[in-house]
């Protein structure tokens, strides 16, 4: 796993875009530390590939909030979902963590991805969100845009890091 790019917001910003994605890897991992400026306890970021704003995305969620579990689905969306993160009314200085795993990102097939995200509020209610995403685009992923689906900002100090994983063989392990 090799770090490709890391960005930290110096000022509040509506989106973060990664455009220098190399095409010689197998899988991508994004690690994010985010806090939204939305005037609410939570915010809901999404992400898009290759600038595709069409309804070519779908996802299912599995959410726990400390009291109950729930599940939801969006079968025709204009983004893939990153999970529930801190909004501006959550405890100050709390940021949410999320990891996004994208296998086979250069394949000519549709692209799946999975998300583990936690919103910790130093209070009774916090959210853990698991997401399974699908983008029906068949082009290799060359850019990723992360943004708030409410059109609000991410606060300064939010970070995003992109890692590349390359498949291969150690010459020892065999498959059958």
């Amino acid at each position, binding site marked *: 796993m090799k770090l490709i790019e890391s960005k930290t917001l110096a000022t509040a910003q509506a989106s973060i875009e990664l455009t220098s994605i190399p095409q010689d890897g197998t899988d991508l991992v994004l690690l994010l530390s985010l806090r939204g400026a939305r005037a609410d306890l939570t915010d809901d970021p999404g992400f898009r590939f290759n600038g595709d704003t069409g309804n070519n995305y779908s996802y299912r969620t599995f959410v726990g909030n400390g009291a109950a579990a729930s*599940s939801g689905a969006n079968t025709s969306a204009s983004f893939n979902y990153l999970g529930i993160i801190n909004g501006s009314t959550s405890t100050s200085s709390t940021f949410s963590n999320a990891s996004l795993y994208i296998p086979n990102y250069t394949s000519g097939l549709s692209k799946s991805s999975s998300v583990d995200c936690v919103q910790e509020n130093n209070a009774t209610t916090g959210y853990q969100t698991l997401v399974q995403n*699908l983008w029906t685009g068949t082009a290799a992923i060359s850019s990723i845009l992360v943004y708030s689906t409410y059109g609000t900002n991410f606060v300064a100090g939010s970070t995003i890091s992109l890692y590349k994983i390359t498949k291969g063989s150690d010459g020892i392990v065999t498959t059958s």
Partner: protein
Amino acid sequence: MPTATYTPLATVTLGTAVSSVSFSAIPASYRDLIFVFSGVVSAGGGEVLRVNFNGDTTSGNYSAVFANGDGSTTASGTDARRFGLMYASRSQTVASFMDYSATDKHKTYLSRTGGASNALEMIAGRWANTAAITSIRVFPDANGFASGSTLSLYGVIS
């Protein structure tokens, strides 16, 4: 120069449908292992993916607890050797095997799995054996992995 933490051990992209895939001769020189599956079932709508270690096919030696959501309802339960979910539409599983080469503890794994058109799930599993893991066999309950599916194993250095 950053240190590579995922060392690729083996990858197979299936040219034909198969009922199982095994990773063998796994060296003990890593801290943890990471397994990645991306693909679809060879037939049917969906099924559970299972795992065996070191050729141990005795179901009673394995335990797993899972929690999942299908877009409207949630569920949790136990199911020996449960390792993932796979469907006719694109599915993926990313699983970690912690301290797989230790010889003083039972082996555990964590799996994140599912398909955006069906359901998603998290699984925690245990193999009640202290032997180092030297082989991993993954297999759906019925049918198999479709052609084009990709399965990879990585070693994570400490």
